[in-house]
């Protein structure tokens, strides 16, 4: 019973971070139809921004917004300078569909290289604002700490904020309209190019939060080659696919499902499956429900 509770708690916390990463992948996909493999690199760079702020101000609560703003800025810059030019240059021919995706792979390497040349390859350390030592019930320690509670609350708050932004504001309507039908959005007066940049920025900020919390929930150390960030990209991507790639709710559901399944596999089957389980889940989803859990098969009519 206690083990079951722990498994669920671990799954939900991990899943919440995957959800954020999935959201940032979905946001980019929806605004520009690009699968952004550089998202983890951008999250990593944002986390370094957070680390710098931490060094100067010694406060996680300053570091987090700095990372978010930095992440949003970097994402906007990449979309404006790099992606827009790339799409224009390779808009026809056999490379048109794949060029932006391959380019993000290149971008991932480039960002890591830039980070290494600025901060070096050695581990740096980020400390969370509250302790990661679990709450205790009687003589047992729960796999749920103040830090995990904070992580969960932050992720939930961000998701509520994004939901309100998307569903209740004009900016959200512009973002959705541009994603579903850029042409009708344009004819209605939406500045679609600007909205695309905005979508990337939101993705950058969400990725930054994922990066910051992924780091402090681990041992706090990270470097350009951190396995945590490679995992974050893979998990976020898988969560996004589970959720159908199109919807923010799907991304959240996908993240939680992935987090829980991995947690249960590690606890009840074998902890050696850590690197295998996510990929098996991805393959099963692609075979059984390629449109994702919430996705609808070929929903669009003319």
């Amino acid at each position, binding site marked *: 019973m206690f083990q079951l509770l722990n498994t669920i708690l671990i799954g939900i916390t991990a899943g919440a971070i995957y959800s954020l990463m999935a959201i940032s992948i979905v946001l980019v996909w929806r605004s520009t139809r690009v699968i952004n493999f550089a998202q983890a690199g951008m999250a990593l760079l944002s986390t370094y921004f957070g680390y710098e702020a931490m060094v100067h101000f010694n406060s996680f609560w300053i570091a987090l917004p700095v990372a978010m703003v930095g992440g949003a800025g970097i994402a906007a810059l990449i979309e404006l300078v790099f992606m827009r030019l790339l799409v224009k240059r390779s808009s026809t021919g056999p490379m048109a569909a794949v060029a932006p995706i391959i380019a993000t792979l290149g971008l991932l390497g480039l960002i890591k290289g830039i980070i290494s040349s600025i901060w070096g390859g050695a581990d740096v350390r980020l400390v969370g604002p509250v302790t990661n030592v679990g709450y205790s019930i009687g003589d047992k320690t729960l796999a749920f700490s103040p830090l995990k509670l904070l992580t969960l609350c932050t992720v939930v708050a961000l998701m509520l904020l994004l939901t309100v932004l998307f569903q209740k504001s004009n900016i959200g309507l512009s973002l959705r309209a541009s994603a579903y039908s850029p042409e009708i959005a344009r004819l209605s*007066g939406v500045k679609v190019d600007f909205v695309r940049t905005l979508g990337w920025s939101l993705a950058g900020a969400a990725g930054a939060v994922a990066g910051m919390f992924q780091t402090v929930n681990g041992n706090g150390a990270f470097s350009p080659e951190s396995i945590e960030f490679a995992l974050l990209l893979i998990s976020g991507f898988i969560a996004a696919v589970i959720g159908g790639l199109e919807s923010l709710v799907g991304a959240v559901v996908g993240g939680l499902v992935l987090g829980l399944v991995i947690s249960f596999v590690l606890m009840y089957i074998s902890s050696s499956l850590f690197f295998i389980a996510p990929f098996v889940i991805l393959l099963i989803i692609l075979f059984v429900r390629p449109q994702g859990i919430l996705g609808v098969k070929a929903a669009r*009519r003319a």
Partner: protein
Amino acid sequence: MTLTVTELTIHHGAICAISDVSFTVPKGQLTAVIGANGAGKTTLLRTLSGLNKSTHGTATWNEHNLLHSKPETIVRHGVSHVSEGKAVIPELSVVENLELGAIWRKNKKEAAESKASVIDIFPRLGERLNQRADTLSGGERQMLAIGRAIMSKPQLLLLDEPSLGLAPLIVEQIFQTIRDLTTSMGLTVVLVEQNAMGALKIADQGVVLNLGKVAVAGTAQSLIADPQVRAAYLGY
């Protein structure tokens, strides 16, 4: 305030879709642009609203050059385009589709008034405000597309085949609504149609396009009376 198109030429790659087309649409008038499939009607409208690029010629509305502006700029100058095929966003609700049309307008009170008047014109939309647009019938979707365009407070309305794929009774309703809107809102309308008879019946003027060129132009009545137009486009 007229729409003036002069010597307009548009290419799709190597193919010339519109060649040396000139016509004017006076304020408050409804002009039907008719012609067979592939005559260049849709291309013409898409160029006027900034979606396509032209090769040669001019097109001005209200002294504003339409040919070198983006669609999102052109709509701010009072030109609304309802593109082909029930141009609504199926994933959005009816009310969101309507609000999208007014998204650039600063005066939210006026936008709310526009919404009230659209619902007044199309009560069916008012009953379905919170439904997704893809649950609507074809006729309702066309109403929504026109409603969205009206939300942009247009002076010039560009309509691309509003009758496409609709039942004859609905087509008649839509055409009547377009005529009423032109008169009551003082709109200037360019109506592109394959349904030549239906369009000419409600139009003040007509332009017949054939293979990208103006074949005949004149008042709607004169076109309906023209034996050649009757034989080629009206079928009797």
